[in-house]
């Protein structure tokens, strides 16, 4: 009886912590460091890299909270995050497979890029029905590439730190 309650409290705590961390980095850091997306990196690390499927539920929680404070129609951010996580996990398991530092960098870059592409795809589709919702700009693409690059570097940095501190934990499979 206590185990589900304990899991629920743990779930709420993790979601809350990630939200605070994400908000803090977005508010306090100057450009380009405020482009870091810790929520997405965190979820990519545990759901994709560590292959822990249970992290899809905190991903749902975090993405719903981000949607509550987003100027985009409700559901766009959540759908983008969840679909991109699943797609990237599939890419990582089937295509990338090895765990070298180069592939970690590619994973970080690809995951953010896929998230942005799906987000823009959904917005473009919705723009057909909602006039004036969103319009793509060429500069948008440069900004998104920069965001993906910054996050890929941070992802690589996290990998480096974890490898340095506990090299045995860098392996494929659930803990």
């Amino acid at each position, binding site marked *: 009886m206590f185990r589900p309650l304990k899991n629920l409290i743990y779930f709420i705590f993790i979601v809350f912590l990630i939200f605070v961390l994400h908000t803090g980095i977005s*508010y306090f850091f100057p450009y380009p460091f405020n*482009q870091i*997306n810790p929520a997405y990196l965190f979820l990519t690390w545990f759901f994709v890299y560590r292959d822990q499927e249970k992290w899809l539920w905190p991903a749902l929680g975090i993405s719903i909270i981000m949607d*509550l404070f987003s100027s985009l129609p409700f559901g766009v951010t959540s759908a983008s995050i969840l679909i991109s996580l699943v797609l990237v996990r599939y890419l990582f398991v089937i295509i990338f497979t090895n765990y070298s530092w180069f592939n970690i960098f590619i994973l970080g870059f690809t995951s953010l890029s896929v998230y942005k592409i799906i987000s823009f795809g959904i917005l473009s589709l919705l723009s057909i029905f909602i006039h004036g919702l969103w319009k793509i700009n060429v*500069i*948008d693409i440069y900004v*998104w590439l920069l965001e993906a690059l910054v996050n890929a570097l941070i992802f690589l940095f996290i990998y480096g730190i974890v490898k340095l501190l506990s090299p045995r934990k860098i392996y494929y499979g659930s803990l």
Partner: protein
Amino acid sequence: MGIVFLFLIASHYLGLVRAVETGIRKITIPILREMHGFSIKIGENYQFFRNRSEFFKAYEECSLSSNNMSVIEAQMKTLSEENLELKKQLNYVQKNKIQSVLAKVIGREILTSSQTIIIDRGEAEGIKLDQPVIVGDGILIGKITKVEKDFAMVRLVNDNQSRIGSVILNKEKSQGVVEGGFGISLRMNLIPRDEDVIVGDQVVTSGLEKAIPRGLLLGSVAVIENEPYKPFQQAILTPGTNLSKLTSVSILLTK
């Protein structure tokens, strides 16, 4: 997971989980408010030490311009009196003043690519989509882009999705569109090439948009780009206020 997600989205749009969403916002909004306030304080200290030499230069310029402003103020008073007199003579009917709601800025959107702020007023105060948001006596800073019962989101004029019909206060009253540039710049496009625009000209809203009245200040011209092979000229504007340090705003309750 897919079914749960679709159920949550449907529940949101049907209003079934509004109480839960309000509860989550009540918990998270104080955190956003404190972080936002703290980030502005950090930004102020950082800017002061970074621009210390420029601070004294700006102070000298300010002192000089305040002397000129006194002269302009006197001329304005004279014109104002003449205007009142003319209105009386023409039986000018004053339009109803637009009501406004004061709101505090409690945070910014945490998705990094948007320049959107969150305010603590919503539908309950009569706020609707696309209503203009100002600071001071009439400096436009953005438009309402999302409204809930107890909070709203404002897309700032320097957001890349922002577009506002505007006019330059020059001889020709050149019209154009002011667009934002990822929080870095304001750019006025579609200005006819043959019209004279000079640095320092003020840019205001044109009134052609339904909900935005004419005359709200957007900024002033800082740089003009007039290429011979382009059909229109462009101007980069200095915003009328610092859009990264907003703490209180007013929403004009236009229809």
